[in-house]
């Protein structure tokens, strides 16, 4: 090749397959790898590996900046296409809520159990205190909520609600309750403080409302309303908040690679617990909207509660009951 500088010669020799790669990149740029033909898909990894070599060569040979920029551009775009996220199948999703969840649950059982114990002991203490001294309720609950609660549980709730308000209310429960669950996870980033505050606040409110309504003598109406969805809802909150606390603790403890990495790894590990918790709250919202306020006999509501409880316990302990398939145990898990 006559009359060329070093860079020019380098480009001239590789022009053909660069053009080919460029065409593939332009076609697949928006992540639509499916728009490529079979031949293009076959050649793409090869071409990518070639430009990877070229990029290192160009840097070593100190070629002109525009040549290096061009090759790095090819590498960047091909890298983005080649490493687009793998597609999830329905099996991945099922595994996420069963095996992955139970492994993650088992690894983080301490913070989850702590949140569970804290929630129920605070709720119980508040309940007993307010049951004995109903006037204390005004310290915990706002005045308008006290009158509202007394009013709404003074009669049978199934007589007050029709199917229309049930639909509306379940929408409200979905938005409100899952948001609280997600928030209790997210605020774990404040070294767990935000999570603890959310759990305490909800436990106090729950205990106070129960104490107030039972002391006013309307306990039967309240229990008829809450029984069916209680297991899913409270368990869901314990799971999401437990995940948040575990995240906060990982930030406090750190690991050999520092706090930020510890947090990042823990958060990744906790996603199955978080989303199983959220799913549980979602189910609770539908039960709360469509079964709890109905005239269905109490034994149906109770059996829904018990079976949902059994379901949660089963999936939480699935890892212990059945050994998980080996492929789920990823090599980079360094705990337990």
């Amino acid at each position, binding site marked *: 090749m006559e*009359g060329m*500088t070093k860079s020019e010669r380098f480009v001239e020799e590789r022009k053909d397959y660069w053009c080919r790669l460029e065409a593939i990149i332009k076609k697949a740029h928006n992540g639509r790898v499916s728009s490529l033909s079979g031949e293009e898909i076959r050649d793409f990894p090869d071409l990518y590996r070639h430009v990877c070599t070229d990029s290192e060569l160009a840097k070593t040979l100190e070629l002109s900046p525009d040549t290096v920029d061009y090759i790095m551009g090819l590498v960047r775009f091909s890298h983005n296409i080649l490493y687009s996220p*793998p597609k999830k199948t329905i099996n991945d999703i099922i595994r996420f809520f069963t095996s992955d969840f139970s492994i993650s649950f088992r690894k983080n059982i301490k913070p989850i159990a702590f949140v569970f114990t804290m929630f129920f002991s605070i709720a119980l203490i508040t309940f007993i205190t307010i049951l004995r001294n109903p006037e204390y309720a005004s310290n915990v609950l706002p005045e308008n909520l006290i009158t509202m609660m007394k009013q709404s549980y003074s009669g049978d709730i199934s007589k007050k609600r029709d199917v229309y308000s049930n639909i509306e209310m379940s929408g409200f429960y979905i938005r409100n309750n899952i948001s609280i669950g997600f928030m209790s996870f997210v605020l774990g980033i404040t070294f767990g403080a935000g999570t603890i505050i959310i759990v305490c606040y909800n436990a106090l409110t729950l205990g106070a409302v129960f104490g107030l309504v039972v002391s006013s003598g309307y306990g039967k109406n309240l229990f008829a309303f809450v029984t069916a969805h209680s297991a899913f809802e409270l368990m869901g909150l314990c799971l999401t908040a437990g995940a948040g606390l575990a995240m906060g603790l990982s930030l406090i403890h750190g690991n050999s690679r520092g706090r930020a990495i510890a947090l990042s790894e823990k958060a990744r590990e906790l996603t199955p617990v978080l989303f199983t918790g959220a799913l549980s709250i979602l189910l609770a919202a539908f039960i709360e909207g469509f079964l709890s306020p109905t005239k269905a006999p109490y034994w149906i509501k109770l059996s829904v509660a018990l079976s949902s409880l059994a379901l949660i316990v089963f999936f939480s302990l699935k890892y212990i009951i059945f050994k998980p398939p080996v492929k789920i145990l990823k090599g980079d898990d360094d705990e337990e």
Partner: protein
Amino acid sequence: MVSIESPEQIRVLYRIASPFSRLLALIVDVALIYTAIYLAVILLGIFNIIHMAAGKNPLRALAGGSVLSSLSVFFIMVLDFVMQWFYFIFFEIFLNGRTPGKIIFGLRVISYSGKPLDATSVILRNFIRVFDQQASLYLGAFFSIILNKDFRRIGDLVAGTIVINEEKGGFKMPDFSLLALEKEISAGEKILGRKLGENELFVIRNFINNLDKISPEKRSDLADKLAEKIHENLQDEDEYTDSLGYIQKIYNSHKDY
């Protein structure tokens, strides 16, 4: 610039997105979220009014008791929830790290480790967004971004991601052709002891090709300066009279090395 190492151990340089362009992208996305919610409210409202006007028992509808109105309320509640928590997650998963706002400003989320951006990373970075932004009144994001050398917010740190700026307009293969000057200079005449690097040749090439963009008064001035610099760098003992001709002669003498 940030250097991300791909699994092939190629260090790929990316331009880090500026916090300002990310803020603009966020504003677009938030505007889209609220537009969608309010559009749904307005459309369902109109739909309900039409239904009520044509309906058999408008009184009942007025009292808030029709399946349509209840379903509308349900739908808007759920839409509000989904938009708040899953708008960014949905787009970043299905558009491979981009949302409509990010597309407009040429931004993309990529994994800091060079691995593919997976759904878990996207979910984490967008859940922590709630803490970074709303829950801490944007202080979380603000301090994280100004303290981190790669402008990553807390959500990016937790998820192991980074927002980068994609080049717009695609790529341009380098063009080595040289603008023809008035005087033709024969190639490779002079054999020099030292030679210029590819960087310097790039400067010369750029200079010659952009001559027509430089005003005539400055043209000879710049050519003199460049020629002097080259002359000095090469420790060339020969004198020259025509700066522009000298520059091109030197460039041509570098061919076929």
